[in-house]
């Protein structure tokens, strides 16, 4: 099993990773492009999430203290793979950036990974207004800034990817073929304009991150997709009738890089493996 290629899922808190895993696990048992090779040893990590979705409710946030990894054995094109989802709560990703170090568990996962699926939540993502986007008037030079400092979303993700590369022993000085990377722009259904191509969206809203990815990964080793694992907004306490009547597995979709909508969530994995 150790020789199987492995896929690592990474993302910040509330970026939809657990919802995706819960929905993906349902689809793997159906007739998607990717199949479950055999039942995973321990699926408790997503059980609560699957129960919530079956009840037509949004899932609860993963607590930071949770320290488990769900490993799904997958089969695609007659090859076996392992999908590793460290259910660490995205806060631990934030902590990696703030503390500037990676613990042993993450280190092992990063080192053995051949494919990275990175979740970037696009819900409420707006362009920061600054002196390069908006003309200023001299008399407006009276603002103040908050003492709290945090990296912009773009800088955060570039820094995170730089760190992952560093831990994997890869520098920033060559174009990479491995690990393959897929940026999943998650919560796609929250966008006002859902017909935009993911590649156009990332250039419009996250150009620094896009430039970094284009420069570090070869064209064959990278892809940008839109992802809505739920397909629609769900309440935390009011069950969604459609979910109750039709089943959670009927919802969710992917927007392929060319803008086409695909209801097979396993395509996310197939696409990553095919890059």
């Amino acid at each position: 099993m150790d020789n199987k290629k492995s896929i690592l899922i990474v993302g910040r808190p509330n970026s939809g990773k657990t919802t995706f895993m819960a929905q993906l696990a349902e689809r793997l048992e159906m007739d998607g492009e990717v199949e479950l090779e055999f039942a995973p040893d321990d699926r408790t990590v997503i059980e609560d999430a699957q129960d919530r979705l079956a009840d037509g409710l949004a899932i609860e946030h993963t607590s930071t203290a949770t320290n488990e990894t769900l490993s799904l054995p997958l089969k695609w094109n007659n090859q076996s793979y392992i999908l590793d989802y460290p259910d660490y709560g995205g806060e631990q990703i934030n902590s990696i950036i703030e503390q500037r170090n990676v613990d042993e568990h993450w280190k092992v996962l990063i080192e053995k990974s051949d494919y990275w699926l990175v979740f970037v939540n696009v819900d409420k993502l707006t362009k920061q207004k600054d002196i390069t986007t908006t003309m200023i008037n001299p008399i407006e030079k009276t603002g103040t800034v908050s003492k709290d400092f945090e990296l912009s979303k773009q800088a955060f993700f570039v820094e995170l990817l730089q760190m992952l590369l560093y831990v994997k022993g890869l520098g920033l000085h060559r174009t990479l073929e491995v690990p393959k990377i897929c940026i999943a722009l998650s919560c796609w259904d929250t966008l006002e304009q859902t017909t935009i191509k993911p590649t156009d969206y990332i250039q419009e809203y996250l150009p620094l991150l896009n430039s970094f990815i284009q420069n570090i990964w070869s064209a064959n080793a990278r892809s940008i997709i839109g992802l809505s694992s739920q397909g629609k907004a769900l309440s935390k306490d009011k069950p969604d009738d459609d979910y109750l009547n039709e089943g959670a597995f009927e919802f969710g979709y992917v927007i392929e890089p060319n803008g086409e909508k695909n209801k097979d969530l396993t395509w996310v994995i197939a696409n990553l493996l095919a890059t």
Partner: protein
Amino acid sequence: MEQNRKCTNEHCDVGLVKGLDCNEGNDPTSECPFWQKTIEQLEAIEPSVKENPSANNYSLSWTGNALGSQSLKILTERGTPFLVGVIGENDSGKTTFLRLLYLLLRNGKQLTEWTFAGSYTFTAWENVTRFLEFNDSNKIAFPPHTSMSDGRNDGLLHLSMKNKSRFKDFVFTDTTGEWFREWARNANSKNADGAKWIHNNADVFIFFIDCEALIEQKWKAGRSISNLMLRLKDNLDNRKVAVLWAKSDKYKDIQPAIIKKLEKSLKANFDNYKEFKISAYDNDTHKVALDIMNWLVQPEKMALTFIPRAEYEEDYFLNYHKQFQND
């Protein structure tokens, strides 16, 4: 032995894999020159990087803060960085200009031939760019004056850029104007060592002329600028100098005689220079900022053989607050 460190010998993973022997056959590994260099590099990095809270944790070799001249070594594995010396008096707009450049890249603008491919100093870039972002009241604040003791992490700002298949590290100096004032006044002053380091090592320069200061202080400011030009001229050779008339919305209010005299000094002191006018309040600010960088990084200058002074005994960028206070 320091674990979780990539040995400078690219074929040896002794620092990464427990139980692995040194690729060069050294036993103990501490006798290996490659491994000794690894440890030297580690120790050259800022103190906060050296703290490893747990033996099982894998610390990163950069903090996100500005680099010091010693920690430039982390960039040298992929070739010599292109160092841009940013020179000017206090409040002349150096910090604002650098962050303007970063913001342009963050918002998707590009240099003609170079595109963004990473940075080891995001915290340093963004800790200041937030002054140039509109706040909730729809106002901006401009970065405060970079003083000797405000504790801000001034030093070297890094951008990794790519041109077709070629990667290059761009490093910008971001320091207090006091360094340059002291250097212009007395080149042998201890407090001028940082400015001298920049003068010795930079591939190109951005030289700031503060229009506002020329209006308020007349030739008193002009003389300081002129003295700084004279100092920069020493051993300048053919290195490019982008001369920025900063806050140029006020350029028209400078006494013509002062402009004339400074223009004359520019011609007399610099062989390879180009003048630009830039103001945060002008429509073409973005274009000018990119034009400046495009001119500075034109290919012929990329062949310069800048070698970071690894043997430099002091790190002026990390120590300068202390230097000033103790002098």
